[in-house]
């Protein structure tokens, strides 16, 4: 074909088709995954630059293997043919669910925020984005951010009225 009447006809008709299945999984909240400020490497305004040091680890790598097998089994059981699996490498940041780096927790020694998204160390500072959540779940996090924010705001307003802030 390549050109001509038959070629023209063929491009107006449906061609071959494929279906794909992607797995999404949780990245566990590893302490080793972190973001730090680099005071040796300053930006153009003389401020420290950010070093983002994080990776997926054994649990995630094993989960990827399992997800691939599970997906292929599902497609096979559903009656699909010519099934092939793949594992393109993954780096944190590809799933654009920015979260973590200001962990929520009870102990100021191991966490930045308390249960109300308030800094342990600085009571009048609240962090209400995804920073509190150190584990990136497998679903979209925005509604949770909004819920946490609403709760933090409610707390902050009540504290303000009590003159605690």
């Amino acid at each position, binding site marked *: 074909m390549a050109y001509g009447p038959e*070629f023209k*006809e063929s491009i107006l008709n*449906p061609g071959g088709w494929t279906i794909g299945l992607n797995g999404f999984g949780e990245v566990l909240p590893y302490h080793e995954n972190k973001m730090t400020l680099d005071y040796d490497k300053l930006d153009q305004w003389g401020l420290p630059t950010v070093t983002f040091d994080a990776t997926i680890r054994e649990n995630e790598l094993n989960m990827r293997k399992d997800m691939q097998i599970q997906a292929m089994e599902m497609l096979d059981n559903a009656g699909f043919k010519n099934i092939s699996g793949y594992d393109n490498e993954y780096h944190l940041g590809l799933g654009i669910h920015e979260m973590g780096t200001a962990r929520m927790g009870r102990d100021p020694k191991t966490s930045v925020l308390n249960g109300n998204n308030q800094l342990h160390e600085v009571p009048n500072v609240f962090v209400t984005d995804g920073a509190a959540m150190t584990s990136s779940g497998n679903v979209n996090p925005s509604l949770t951010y909004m819920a946490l924010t609403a709760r933090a705001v409610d707390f902050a307003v009540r504290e303000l009225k009590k003159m605690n802030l």
Partner: protein
Amino acid sequence: MQRRTALKNIGLSFGAVALSSTVVSLFESCQTGEGVWTPKFFTSQQADLVSKIIDVILPTTDNTPGANDLNLTQFMDGYMALVSSPEDKEFAKMSLPIVSKLTLEGAGKEKFSELTNEDIDALLNRFLRADKATQESRWDTLNAWAEAKEKGETNAVPEKAAAHSMINSLRSLAVSAFKNSEVIGETVLAYAPVPGEQKGCVSIEEATGGRAWSLY
């Protein structure tokens, strides 16, 4: 060989038309069908040749209009002038004269006006229907040339390879423009701009009359 990198840099990428407001207005201006049209990107000779080439690639048939019924040369010219990347423009400016030259040489003619559909068919046959090994070796030649060029070497352009790539790109652009044109998109392909229902198991014949979907 870093084929992808090289291909990106020598303008093989301008096949798919991404719909933007510029593209939409280009389509609209092509539909007014004003008598006199002056190409912005192609020379008038190149516009004439492109129109002849896409007429053989997408000819008018009993069922459906062809490339020239839809003024696709005009669209492609506008696309190259207003939308394509600087790299694509550069590659096209270099390759189109080569295509012109090889077309005339192949036909044994001196004037574009003398070129017939058979001459164009012979040209396309030599390139678009070249066997796989020939095509592969042309990509390799073109890549090697592009990589050398990136390193600052100035070698003679491998003409057949450049022409092949250009003709391929013209075809891709023509096909893309063809499918996105109003006539094909709304009256030939299956067109449902506001899809309201999902039927999970029907034959293609029943669903779309055997045609591909226009919008997806």
